């Protein structure tokens, strides 16, 4: 008997719209599988450490604290089993060389020798207890070791750091798993920093936040009490006046990736909000696909009322029919499940690129996901089979064989509800995508850029070369495509130092926090900054070199000068009395950081410690220009390659999370609307089939094709309209909350909703009218013959 059911199911599959049905469900489930992989990965960060539950990170408003915290806390608090420090020179990318082979490296961490006692990084070569003990020791990851040494044994080999220091390789460690909140290519001994304190100009004091500090607690429950004991601890070591100096917190290791957004994070972290958003989208797409499947199965089952009647006439009882419909829909759902896994596997590489991940399908097979998938398959199978199974199987053969009743009307409300839901969700997703993109475009438009030109930034890594910067600038200016060149400590897009400044002679207890950057005379010209008042730096005025400041409008206001003109001629100094100077000009505010944050007060002076060279070039024929710049560069500093980036890209990378989210939401919105349309297509076909006779009669009575198309489409249009009404407030609330995460944001315009509404309506109309036109064009004699 089961064989008979499957046979019928397969034959139905071949002939009807069942493939639409299965394809829609498969696509929906595939999306869900991908999203589940993503969410699972995001939630898995740092959990691979054996001690993950017992590790906390000591932070204040920054992710780093003074170097003495770790050793002293380990010594004084019995509940701290181990304390380990990491230091990451996030601003520098030193040149590491082995013989002739050299690369700029960014992922170098200095770590205490007990790193391996706290974290579960697996050391493949070397002694975990001593490998990071001596100064100038260095551990390489497997990949890095192969990059520098190929097949040769790296242990005991020397790596040169910026042509200044030499490190000895003392170990090889497995590559950091991608789901780590910090990832390194090199681990150098933390003792190196002490041996080198003068050179780095980086005092390893309590107040200088240099060390990312992790504590391994004996009991994870002790974190709260320990946190409460920190103020007293600081008073013990720093004196009473430091009691309220900073608020220290202990973050569980496993919270860092998704819940921490401090300054000086080692890498941009993920965001729990995106995990929720994607989980919701996954659920929504799955619901759309499922409701589609249920919808179409239900609708199509009506065509089979006759079959039900016949089966009853020849002896089937209800139980048998229920079993038949359930096993049929189960078969379809299992088929869709299998197809979904295959589709997800195929789409995974693309998804990985979009999401910036390296996910594999392994997780699907292992553990909870498979159970979840099977659960969904079973649920959908039962839900989709239930209507035909329990409602249809109840029909009395006399009625259905006469064809008098149109049994499908029973599920009509359900179907309408499901269509409404699908389209509302699709519209929310499309509106969400549109708003994300609008915000991205807005941020890009507000970012510093010079029309038709590009700003190329080249880090100045060769210290010995810095005194010759002016000569290099002159040489670069010779190039016809170069508009301006400026050397500065930092460029927009990079994090700038923060200092307290006061109006000269003002209240030192209440300084203004400002960003402070050393620039040269050409900075404003190179970055296209406009003056709001006063003048720029001048080579003619020698005193500018030592005691002139350019400030931005926000700084002027922060100092209390509401009109920029009032600021010109005022004197300011650092809170410690250093660097007094006169404000010679005020520049218009510009976004020198991402638009997530409000513009902060900024002061510029002519005492640059040049670490970056910004070159403003004409954008046409860029490759040739860059090649030419590189030749000039190499003449000056042959040991250091011309490593550059475009300022635009640097800003863009700050919006990477939003861009990714936008793209992903966009693709899922497309899929959602696609699946919804599949459903609509099937329903329209069904509805047209249901009304074949009506259409025939109307045509005989003189109805036009146009009139019939309107008649058949009207109901769906009404549903899409209603979905629109539901979607707008939902999308508005959700997107307003998302936009609240930005200091500068677009306003949600009605235009977006109008666009989304008309787009969806257009898609729905095209889908429906295909069937409507087909039905309306049919020969009425055909449709009436069956009567």
């Amino acid at each position, binding site marked *: *008997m089961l064989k*008979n059911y499957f*046979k*019928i199911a397969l*034959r*139905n599959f071949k*002939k009807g719209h069942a493939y639409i049905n299965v394809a829609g469900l498969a696509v929906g489930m595939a999306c869900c599988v991908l999203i589940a992989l993503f969410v699972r990965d995001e939630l898995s960060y740092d959990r691979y450490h054996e001690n993950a539950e017992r590790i906390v990170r000591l932070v204040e408003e920054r992710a780093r604290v003074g170097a003495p915290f770790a050793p002293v806390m380990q010594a004084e608090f019995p509940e701290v089993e181990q304390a380990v420090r990491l230091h990451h020179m996030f601003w520098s990318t030193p040149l590491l060389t082995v013989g002739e082979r050299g690369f700029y490296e960014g992922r170098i961490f200095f770590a205490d020798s007990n790193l391996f006692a706290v974290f579960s990084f697996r050391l493949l070569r070397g002694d975990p207890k001593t490998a990071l003990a001596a100064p100038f020791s260095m551990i390489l990851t497997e990949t890095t070791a192969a990059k520098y040494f190929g097949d040769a044994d790296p242990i005991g080999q020397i790596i040169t750091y910026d042509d200044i220091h030499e490190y000895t390789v003392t170990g090889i460690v497995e590559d950091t798993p991608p789901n780590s909140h910090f990832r390194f290519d090199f681990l150098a001994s933390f003792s190196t920093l002490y041996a080198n304190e003068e050179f780095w100009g980086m005092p390893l004091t309590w107040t200088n936040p240099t060390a990312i500090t992790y504590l391994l607690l004996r009991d994870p429950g002790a974190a709260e009490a320990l946190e409460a004991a920190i103020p007293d601890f600081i008073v013990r070591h720093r004196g009473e006046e430091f009691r309220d100096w900073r608020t220290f917190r202990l973050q569980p290791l496993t919270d860092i990736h998704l819940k921490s957004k401090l300054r000086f994070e080692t890498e941009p972290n993920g965001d729990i909000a995106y995990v929720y958003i994607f989980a919701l989208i996954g659920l929504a797409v799955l619901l759309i696909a499922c409701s589609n499947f249920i919808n179409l199965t239900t609708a199509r089952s009506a065509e089979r009322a*006759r*079959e039900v*009647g*016949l*089966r*009853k*006439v*020849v*002896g*089937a*009882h*209800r139980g*048998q029919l229920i079993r038949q419909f359930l096993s049929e829909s189960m078969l379809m759902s299992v088929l869709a499940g299998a197809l979904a896994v295959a589709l997800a596997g195929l789409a995974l590489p693309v998804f990985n690129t979009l999401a910036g991940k390296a996910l594999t399908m392994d997780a699907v097979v292992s553990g909870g996901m498979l159970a979840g998938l099977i659960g969904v398959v079973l649920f959908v199978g039962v839900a989709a089979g239930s209507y035909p199974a329990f409602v249809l199987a109840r029909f*009395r*053969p*006399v009625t259905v*064989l006469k064809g008098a009743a149109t049994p499908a009307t029973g599920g009509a409300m359900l179907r309408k509800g499901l269509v409404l839901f699908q389209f509302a969700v699709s519209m929310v997703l499309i509106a969400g995508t549109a708003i994300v993109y609008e915000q991205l475009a807005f941020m890009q438009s507000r970012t510093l850029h010079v029309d038709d030109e590009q700003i190329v930034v080249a880090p100045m890594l060769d210290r010995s070369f810095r005194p010759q910067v002016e000569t290099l600038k002159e040489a670069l200016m010779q190039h016809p495509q170069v508009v301006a060149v400026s050397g500065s400590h930092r460029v927009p897009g990079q994090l700038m130092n923060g200092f307290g400044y006061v109006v000269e002679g003002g209240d030192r207890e209440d300084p203004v926090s400002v960003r402070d950057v050393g620039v040269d005379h050409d900075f404003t010209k190179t970055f296209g900054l406009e003056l709001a008042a006063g003048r720029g730096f001048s080579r003619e005025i020698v005193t500018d070199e030592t005691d002139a400041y350019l400030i931005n409008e926000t700084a002027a206001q922060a100092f209390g000068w509401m009109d920029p003109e009032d600021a010109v001629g005022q004197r300011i100094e650092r809170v410690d009395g250093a660097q007094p100077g006169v404000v010679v000009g005020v520049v218009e505010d510009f976004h020198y950081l991402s638009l997530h944050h409000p513009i902060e007060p900024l002061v510029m002076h002519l005492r640059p410690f040049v670490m970056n060279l910004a070159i403003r070039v004409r954008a046409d024929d860029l490759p040739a220009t860059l090649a030419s710049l590189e030749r000039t560069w190499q003449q000056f500093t042959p040991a250091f390659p011309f490593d550059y980036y475009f300022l635009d890209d640097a800003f863009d990378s700050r919006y990477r999370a939003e861009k990714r989210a936008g793209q992903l939401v966009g693709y899922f919105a497309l899929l959602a609307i696609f699946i919804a349309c599949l459903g609509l297509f099937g329903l329209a076909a069904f509805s047209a089939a249901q009304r074949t006779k009506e259409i025939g009669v109307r045509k005989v009575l003189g109805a036009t094709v146009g009139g019939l198309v309107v008649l058949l489409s009207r109901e769906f249009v009404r549903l899409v309209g209603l979905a629109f009404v539901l979607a707008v407030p939902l999308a508005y609330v959700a997107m307003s909350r998302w936009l609240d995460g930005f200091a500068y944001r677009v306003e949600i315009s009605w235009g977006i909703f109008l666009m989304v509404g008309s787009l969806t309506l257009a898609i729905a109309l095209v889908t429906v009218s295909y069937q409507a036109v087909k039905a309306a064009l049919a020969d009425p004699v055909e449709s009436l013959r069956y009567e």
Partner: protein
Amino acid sequence: MIKADHLKKVYRTDEVETTALNNVNLEIEAGEFVSVMGPSGCGKSTLLNILGLLDNPSGGTYNFLGHDVAGYSERQRAQFRKGNIGFVFQSFNLIDELTVYENVELPLLYLGMASAERVRRVEETLERVNIMHRKDHFPQQLSGGQQQRVAVARAVVASPKLILADEPTGNLDSTNGEEVMQLLTEMNEAGAAIVMVTHSPADAEYSHRIIHLFDGHIVTENFLERKYAHA
């Protein structure tokens, strides 16, 4: 075999009450071949549905094979129908997704018959209606006459005691129609009682008795020359 007393069937909608059958008394013996004639809307199909246990009467008693089935639930009726009653419709009503063989096999499947026995019975029946060579075709690949032969095969494959035929030749040309009537006569001669609704006096000639219905009443009963085997 069948004894119906004062059968009554009333259809009710919100406003209108329609009496389809009124005070019908009918006895049919095993092996008898009865034709029911009458104008459209006289209650022929309603009578057939009640006799076939597809529908319940609104009043009166109906005794089928010694059981009083008038008050049976749908489930009981379905159970009783299985193996006892076969149906042939004007519009054939084969299941399009099943082959000829599978359509005929269906009643046996619902009877829970063992596979070997099913094969034997289906093939035997297909031979009997002379459609064996088309057993793997789907209904829509067959002519109307062939489809109706399949339908007859399906009706008789479980050896029912009663075959109900609702205008079995209504959609067929005269040659095919005659063939189907021959087939039904053979089945009748093999022992099955037949009740057939028809508009065709020629078809009615094949039966032993013709009942004329008008407005839900039996108006005349004519016994024909042809004598049935078990009389």
